[in-house]
């Protein structure tokens, strides 16, 4: 199948609003993680919180959608002229020919958590201002963005935990390949909430300091929040020389365990191999791998085995979650945007300084940023339930 043009992209996470700040943080190897001071959460952990999300104001006609997840979604949509680029695409293709496919793991569940804290003491009812469809529902995110962008084509949310916003690129590519749409707004938004913070805490997976993927002293994940969008379009006859392309997608299921990856990384390996095959590339042509790299021992070990099995020990790779935290359902799209930045700026980002690397993994983990031409990147996203997705990005020339 032909490549798909990534004609515009943007990301907002704890390392920055939009591309300039995100690039600067990657170049400086900064981390946006801080000691958790989110609402009244009482856990000793570090999180990647986006500043001033709650300052966002909703248009009156979209006030039902007012929740932290949609406020973050709106804040990010304003960056880098993304909404304007979608408008331009809409005038070229038509509003019915543009899909909206967004990933989220928890959507606006923070709103539901607070609604339960505001139940009527006598009747037990939730407060009257709680609107399920516009905040709690996984589709609330796609519905909100589709309304903000005034698009009229196909739409859905994908909610497959931490692979959600990688898999939306696969779904969009299929629909583009089938000729049902000419463009798609894809991406992911997930925001901090008590369910995921206390949930990962109860699983014993949260680090008490900033997460250190693939370090020899890693102690678990740091949660973050992010919103990232990519505008995918049918491939033009003569794309710009530095245009970023989505070349291939690969998906698989572990069929192993709900919250532990396959110990040998079998599902991860299948996803990577399928992504390469769909892109028509050999492992040797991949210049850099953006790892899922959550910084739990199990996840890192399983992914390293899978990567070493497909690529051997020489392909440079790194996880950027030490900078952004694990943004769950937004991670796939956030890291897709980081891949697009890497291609356009000849950068292989190493992530923040993180002490000694785990040298037992048999992969070429980057110890420092590399500045060199990056033609092909593979990005991994794996989630609970054994949901795996790998994406391959490239450049047009």
């Amino acid at each position, binding site marked *: *199948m032909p490549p798909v043009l990534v004609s515009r992209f943007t990301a907002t996470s704890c390392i920055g609003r939009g591309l300039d700040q995100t690039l600067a943080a990657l170049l400086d190897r900064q981390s946006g993680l801080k000691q958790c001071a989110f609402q009244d959460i*009482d856990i000793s952990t570090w999180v990647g919180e986006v500043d001033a999300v709650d300052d966002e104001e909703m248009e009156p006609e979209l006030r039902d959608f007012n929740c932290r997840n949609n406020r973050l979604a709106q804040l990010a949509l304003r960056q880098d002229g993304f909404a304007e680029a979608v408008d331009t695409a809409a005038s070229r293709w038509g509003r*019915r020919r543009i899909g909206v496919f967004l990933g989220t*793991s928890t959507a606006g*569940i923070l709103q*539901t*958590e607070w*609604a*339960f*804290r505001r*139940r009527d003491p006598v009747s*037990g009812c*939730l407060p009257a201002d*709680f*609107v*399920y*469809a516009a905040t*709690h*529902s*996984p*589709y609330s995110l*796609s*519905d909100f963005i589709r309304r903000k962008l005034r698009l*009229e*084509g*196909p*739409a*859905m*949310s*994908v*909610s*497959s*935990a931490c692979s959600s916003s990688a*898999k939306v690129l*696969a*779904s969009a590519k*299929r*629909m583009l390949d*089938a000729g*049902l749409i000419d463009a798609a707004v894809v991406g992911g938004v997930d925001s901090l909430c*008590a*369910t995921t913070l*206390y*949930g990962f*805490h109860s*699983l014993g997976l949260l680090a008490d300091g900033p997460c250190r993927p693939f370090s020899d002293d890693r102690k678990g994940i740091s949660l973050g929040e992010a919103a990232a969008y990519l505008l995918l379009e049918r491939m033009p006859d003569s794309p710009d020389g530095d245009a970023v392309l989505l070349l291939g997608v690969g998906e*698989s*299921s*572990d*069929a*192993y365990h*709900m919250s532990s990856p396959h110990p040998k990384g*079998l*599902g991860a390996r*299948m996803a990577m191999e*399928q992504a390469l095959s769909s892109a028509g590339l050999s492992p040797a042509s991949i210049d850099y791998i953006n790892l899922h790299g959550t910084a739990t021992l199990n996840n890192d070990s399983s992914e390293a085995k899978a990567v070493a099995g497909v690529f051997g020990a020489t392909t440079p790779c790194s996880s950027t979650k030490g900078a952004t935290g694990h943004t769950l359902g937004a991670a796939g799209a956030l890291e897709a945007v980081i891949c697009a930045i890497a291609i356009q700026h000849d950068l292989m980002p190493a992530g923040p300084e993180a002490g000694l690397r785990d040298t037992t993994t048999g992969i070429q983990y980057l110890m420092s940023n590399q500045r060199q031409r990056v033609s092909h990147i593979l990005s991994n996203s794996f989630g*609970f*339930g*054994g*949901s795996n997705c790998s994406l391959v990005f490239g450049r047009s020339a």
Partner: protein
Amino acid sequence: MTLISAYLEGIGLLGPGVPDWPQGLAILAGQTPYQQQKTVLSPPASLPPAERRRASPGVMAALEVGHKACAMAGVRPAEPASVFASSGGDGRICHAICSALASGDTMISPTQFHNSVHNAISGYWGIAAGAMTPSSVVSAHDGSFAAGLLEAVMLLGSEQRPVLLIACDSDYPQPLHDARPVPDTFAVALLLTTMPHPGKTIAQLSFCGDTLFTDAEVQPMDDHALETLRQSIPAARCLPLLQLIARGEAGRVVLDYVNPPRLAVDVAPCS
């Protein structure tokens, strides 16, 4: 113009007053009157004992219809790629977690937490069926069935292997029930193939690029109780499609999707 076809070879169905597809077929074909009853759920034999004991209504219903659709089509459950469509995640777990957090109890059960993900059913299907194939997990509120059907047909085209669509929704306890009044569990599974198999294919489903996204209205079910069922559980928005199939009729059916557009499917019986 784009014309995409899928061949329906297996159906699984379970809902209030609809214990399986053969009885659903009789009801939808007008041979048996529909009588609403609580959905009868059974623990999935295909899961290991610990997972079986903890299986939620959604997992029980989805696994049952999925296995039945595969058996009807004569397809090994590990073989198809899969699509899971659901309006929301597990309502009881969501209630339990939000209630505990509101009462200041922050020790969430690890099992409840990993079962709270929207793709829990996909994960359990993978484990039960031994399926390592791609699995999509989609949601479009009341249009989730149509979103899943469209995703399944797209996956069929790219994977060139059978695709199992499972749409499933279950009820929330109070107080969430007031905000999202889904009354019971409903699950439907469709096993789709890229090529027809004479004697096995039930119907051809076609999607015409010009008309599949439509402003046309959904034709309500003739039977008032079935129409109530269709409107009250998102997965039951499949009923107009199943009715055409049950009656062995050819025609175009319009399904609720992201209104607008709705999704138009052309159905042609094959047996």
